């Protein structure tokens, strides 16, 4: 049985998933919408995380292969709520890898009302979260001695 990672909050999942989607190749606006949706869906236990990780892979492969079909796997649907408003069924008509996931993301972003995670936090299968984290880490910039010293404030030892 797969062990579970967490507990996570909604905003924590949103933060990591947004940047994971961006690292996989989606523009930031699309990634932010997708990350938000994934956080909300996770809180409601409505996600199969293996489908999310598969979509991230498809998105990234689409980018490297310059394949329009795959490059919109997440991004076209992340424009889902936009499309849902703008042109109704356009979304469903698009040639995407996982229209079910796409519709789920779109619906999460369209729903009204506050979503609360369980008091004990949100748990995600460890293997799937490891994939999200692997993508997330690609959004981060490796550190160097120069960036440690000049990229942010304060000294490395404080005597004040």
């Amino acid at each position, binding site marked *: 049985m797969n062990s579970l990672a967490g507990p996570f909050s909604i905003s924590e999942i949103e933060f990591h998933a947004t940047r994971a989607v961006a690292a996989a190749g989606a523009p930031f606006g699309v990634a932010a919408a997708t990350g938000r949706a994934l956080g909300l869906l996770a809180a409601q236990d409505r996600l199969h995380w293996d489908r999310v990780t598969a979509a991230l892979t498809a998105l990234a492969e689409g980018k490297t292969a310059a394949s329009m079909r795959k490059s919109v796997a997440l991004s076209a649907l992340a424009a889902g709520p936009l499309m849902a408003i*703008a042109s109704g069924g356009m979304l469903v008509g698009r040639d995407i890898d996982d229209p079910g996931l796409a519709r789920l993301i779109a619906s999460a972003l369209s729903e009204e009302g506050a979503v609360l995670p369980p008091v004990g936090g949100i748990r995600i299968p460890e293997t799937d979260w490891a994939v999200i984290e692997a993508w997330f880490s690609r959004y981060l910039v490796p550190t160097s001695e120069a960036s440690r010293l000049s990229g942010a404030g304060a000294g490395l030892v404080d005597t004040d």
Partner: protein
Amino acid sequence: MELRDPDRVMRLERMGAAFPTRLSFMRSLVRRMARERWRFEKLRFDVDENGFGTSVFAVHTPEWTYSLLIFTHDLPPEKRTDRVIAEAWDATFNLIDGVPSDADIERLSQNTPRQEAGRFTQKELVLARANRSVRLFEHVVGRLAAGQQPDIDLVVQVGYLMRTTAVYGNGKFGIADRARIEDRPEARGSFQIEMLAVYMFRWFTLELVQQMARARGGEDAAELDPETARYLGIGNATGLGMAPFLARHPRLVDRWVVARETALARVRAITSASDASAALFHSALKQARLHLVDWRVDDVQQTERITRLKSDLNVIAEIAGMLLPGEPAPWDRLYRIVALECSTEGQELLLSLMLEPHGALVDDLAEDLAASEHWQVDGEATCGETLDLLQSNFAWALAIDFADPVASEHFWYYSEEKLEPRLGRRIEEPGADREMPLAIARDVKAFAGALQAEDPDTPLGALLVRQPEHLFAAQRVQLSELHPYAEIRDNLIARGIRPIDILRFKLALFGASRFDPKSDLWTRISMYQGAPLPGSLDGPGVEGWSLSARPGAAA
């Protein structure tokens, strides 16, 4: 009375001259504490003579109880740094929803000291840490233990016993999402729960030095003079993290600025000043002048600005003396003259001083300062309509020549080292392909190009499906229609960008004072300096403490 022009207000030069006002988050929280008679108690205070141990301090609001669980540790000097990348601290703490059980304390004792490396639950509302002031903490303990008061000049020079180096809320590392508490009256405003944690921690630091002094000095130990205690705030070292927050929360920024600008407009619209309001203004002005005497920093530019500010306050005092209370429309006239005669810092300080006598008129604006940042793009808008809106509200961005490398010299990023936000140089350093979305001017200008290439009647949605890279900019442009103060109207990636201007803007809204820039990238500040302590919330000092004067100076 119209609000001030966003093109004037949302420039970094003015944002970096902001001062706390009576609408600031700390001020509104203290006001609520006093009004609702919040009750504070120490549930546990187990610290040794070195101040190490476990403590639980609680506060009871009319409906809820919150507890600050604090672990205080032995910290080797070489590990004491204010940076996010620190791995050990003098104190680590959580604000907890309710009262922690023994099991909670045991669980958190394994996690809170590890900060970002720990895991938390929806019962924890805030995660934070702090370091002792090397200059002041031991001095105060030693003096009190010896039956003496601390050197007041040193107290004034430092201003705090400990300083926080990060205060995390809203779901970080598994703690509660804001949605869990946002309907509670005391949590509806911005950062009220985080500010409550800091307020309680300030109380703890004062109790801690007293406790340590008693442990060391026994019956000979002195009690810290109440006026000195009140003067001591909580320090904070603030770095780049606040900048991406502002960029990610444009609607919230707009709410904050609209509240402040509306308050200013209401006061400027007053046709005549009462004797009482004039007296309160002059009192606040006097206190600000005393505050400036002790506002000393190493930064050359800020030192020059403080010097100018002192002369500005002389100008303000002279003009106010002529206009208040007898002249018509005195506040508007005062503001207009000062806008011509004084520096930007002088103008923004005047704003703060003008609000001070007018609580009944403006305090309602500090309530409910929250906003959701999740909105959808209207894809039915046409590209022509969107372009018109963009050209109207982003002229400042369109005027920037991004063909010049200087205009995009920097990029913002998260370092893999504890996700510390950093500012890099695009050409020299790797990572620009992973930059944070803070290049709003550049992205909006690129979006303008895409819009211009479209038939004006094309639905925006059709463009965005083909070119989803413009979705982010499209959101910002549509947002600007109803939220004029949502954007910082400067290029955040240009050569010469001063992130501390962004930091000061936000910190002033929080209610911080004593801005002490240490470079263009970070600043020290004081929080709650001069604010009433839990035992004196029913006294006269609930208002007017933002720019506090040194103990004894106001007498």
